[in-house]
């Protein structure tokens, strides 16, 4: 599943370690999420969306929805 987690993180000027601390996961997990090599559970996906004040479908793309508009990414 594609996502725009890396763009969202960089827009806030965070490192992967910063995001890992915010989400309460390991840096390795943040790296796998950003690379699209791991699909998070629903609770983690909700946590990510809530952290960036977005809806889940704005962060994660299942191939059926239009991609996130860059203007929604807030610093």
């Amino acid at each position: 599943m594609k996502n725009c987690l890396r763009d969202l993180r960089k827009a806030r000027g965070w490192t992967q370690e910063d995001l890992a601390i915010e989400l309460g996961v390991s840096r390795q997990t943040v790296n796998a999420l950003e690379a699209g090599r791991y699909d998070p559970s629903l609770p983690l996906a909700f946590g990510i969306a809530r952290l960036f004040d977005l809806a889940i479908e704005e962060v994660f793309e299942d191939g059926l929805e239009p991609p996130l508009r860059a203007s929604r990414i807030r610093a």
Partner: protein
Amino acid sequence: MPDRLSPPDAARRRYNIVHTLVMFAFAGSIVAVARFGPGAAPALRWALVALPAVLLALAVWEFVRMVRRDDEMMQLLYLRAVSISAGAVLVAGTIWGMIEVLLGTPAFPAFLLLPAFATIYGVVFSVLSSRR
């Protein structure tokens, strides 16, 4: 090393330190058993044998504690690696046992089961995590 660590990363760093210390203590206890065990009184011999057993139990307990404190993706990796390694050791041990019974080959020393599992686990975990 970053100044701040997320709880899973901090738990893993703590585990690595504790596990290394426990493994050094385990190696020392094995040397002590080999050196002082044979000529010792029965009570002392039991105590010497109990020491590495307790240290192994401590190592397993620390591993479980670390897995419980890690995040969902890492837990998935640990459980996959444990499952594959345990399966490999069980199959290899069973095949060895069959050959032992049917062909009379030397018995496999059972105390090597956990080290064999740990070795396979290390390889499997490295392969699985490199794909994440």
